[in-house]
């Protein structure tokens, strides 16, 4: 049972930080930035490469994350801001194009083979009936701390309030003395950092390859939208829900019902089922599960 929870959390952690980043950027820029998943890949790969050339793990991680954040800001400044002037679907296609360039860059720099941190192999620790390894615990901790810091920032500081104000009404935010351009830069930086941390968290647990970004795209999208785009903490809940459903449907043994020992739903259908859940949830709450905004006339 506890193992089951660990499995759910582990999968959710992989999605959460990137989904938060996507949702946060969406709230201010009003377009789903596909390149975010590549920031996650960049974070993970960069940290591994840095460790390989001699940096201690912690230093490698910090550098990778900060660098990725800066890359996110620079791309936003030079590309996405200009694309957004044309329209949000244009910006989205633009971010896809940026993702392709990222793939190309990865392909020439690190090649298609997976890589991982050089960490001592640790025997899993037993907690109740679950087995967890040390790097996994570290990766949990990173995700938890990142979430906590972001929550404090978003809900408890003036900066967070200003971000939320900018995301609901940019013109009025400007008229209230908020530097909306800077808010956007900050949110882009934060999203880049969050995505990179997400990538690092994945890398710590195991291995990353250059496809990891594009592989994350759909589940991250699903999480962000299930929680309600523009509501970063909805994305967390969305990620948890998606992984819960995926895990539940694959661990229920239908065998006894059908008079056989083990009959599982084919795992291939796990993601299909979580997508169907997404559709059903949106039929019920069209703006995501955790958006309580009223749109009135």
């Amino acid at each position: 049972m506890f193992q089951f929870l660990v499995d759910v959390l582990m999968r959710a952690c992989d999605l959460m930080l990137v989904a938060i980043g996507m949702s946060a950027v969406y709230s201010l820029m009003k377009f789903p930035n596909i390149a975010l998943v590549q920031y996650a890949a960049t974070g993970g790969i960069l940290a591994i490469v840095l460790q390989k050339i001699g940096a201690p793990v912690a230093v490698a991680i910090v550098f990778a994350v900060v660098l990725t954040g800066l890359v996110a800001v620079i791309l936003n400044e030079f590309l996405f801001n200009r694309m957004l002037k044309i329209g949000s679907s244009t910006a989205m296609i633009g971010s896809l194009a940026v993702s392709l360039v990222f793939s190309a860059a990865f392909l020439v720099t690190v090649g298609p083979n997976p890589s991982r941190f050089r960490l001592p192999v640790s025997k899993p620790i037993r907690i109740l009936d679950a087995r967890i390894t040390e790097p996994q615990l570290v990766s949990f901790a990173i995700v938890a701390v990142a979430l906590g810091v972001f929550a404090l920032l978003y809900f408890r500081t003036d900066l967070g309030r200003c971000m939320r104000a900018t995301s609901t009404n940019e013109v009025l935010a400007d008229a209230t003395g908020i530097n909306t351009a800077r808010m956007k830069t900050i949110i882009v930086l934060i999203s880049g950092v969050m995505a990179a941390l997400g990538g690092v968290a994945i890398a710590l647990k195991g291995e990353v390859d250059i496809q990891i970004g594009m592989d994350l795209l759909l589940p991250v999208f699903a999480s962000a939208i299930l929680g309600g785009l523009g509501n970063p903490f909805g994305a967390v809940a969305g990620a948890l829900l998606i992984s819960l459903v995926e895990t539940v449907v694959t661990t229920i043994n239908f065998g006894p019902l059908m008079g056989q020992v083990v009959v599982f739903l084919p795992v291939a259908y796990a993601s299909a089922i979580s997508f169907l859940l997404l559709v059903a949830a949106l039929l019920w709450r069209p703006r995501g599960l955790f958006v309580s905004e009223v749109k009135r006339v």
Partner: protein
Amino acid sequence: MIEVTEVRAGYGDGPDILNGISLTAEPGRIVTILGPNGCGKSTLLKCIAGFVRPRAGHIRMSGEAVTDVPTYLKVRNHRVGFVPQTDNVFASMTVAENIMLGGRLMERRDRERRFDTLLGQYPSLASKKNRRASALSGGERQLLSLARALISEPSILLLDEPSAGLSPRMMHDVFEAIADVRRREGPSILMVEQNAFEALHVSDSAYVLSFGSVAIEGAASDLLADPAMRSLYLGGDKH
């Protein structure tokens, strides 16, 4: 103090909406801008606030040139309060958060004090303090927007139709409140209005715009007194 000299402005690469407008609003005075729909009143306010960049001409606030200063800096440096005509609230935030945001540049103590007095003045908002602004009725939004602008004790107040959609009683209260702010804090108030009579009653001077230029300017009382003016620009002689 707001000084606008020979400002021309328009949207995108469209034609000029403002064709060389000049006006001044001195501290402690209420200046009302009147004019038919689409003559450029809101554009003028947006221009002063910095949302529309003038194509020619100058804007000064408290004697300082601010023509190309971005909005948020104007708001910070010259304590500008702005009530837009539409989209005037932070829809997904609560009423209290909306008002507090208006005062985010103030000392915390001052802000809370002002917050309490404002809610005292607008009981209909006080009772909806923790409700999302998106649920408010049209009139309630109008009040909220005004409260948000007033909390910071602005020295320049730009009001785009503050009385639109208010009940007669509320409209009266709002104009009283504006007159009251003028008396106590002495900001320069520039107000666009369609409810001309009520607005002129509390104003010191007025400009009537027509197709992006000033057609008439004068003291509010003179405009009210002139019957020709009434029928031509103020909607007939009904009062």
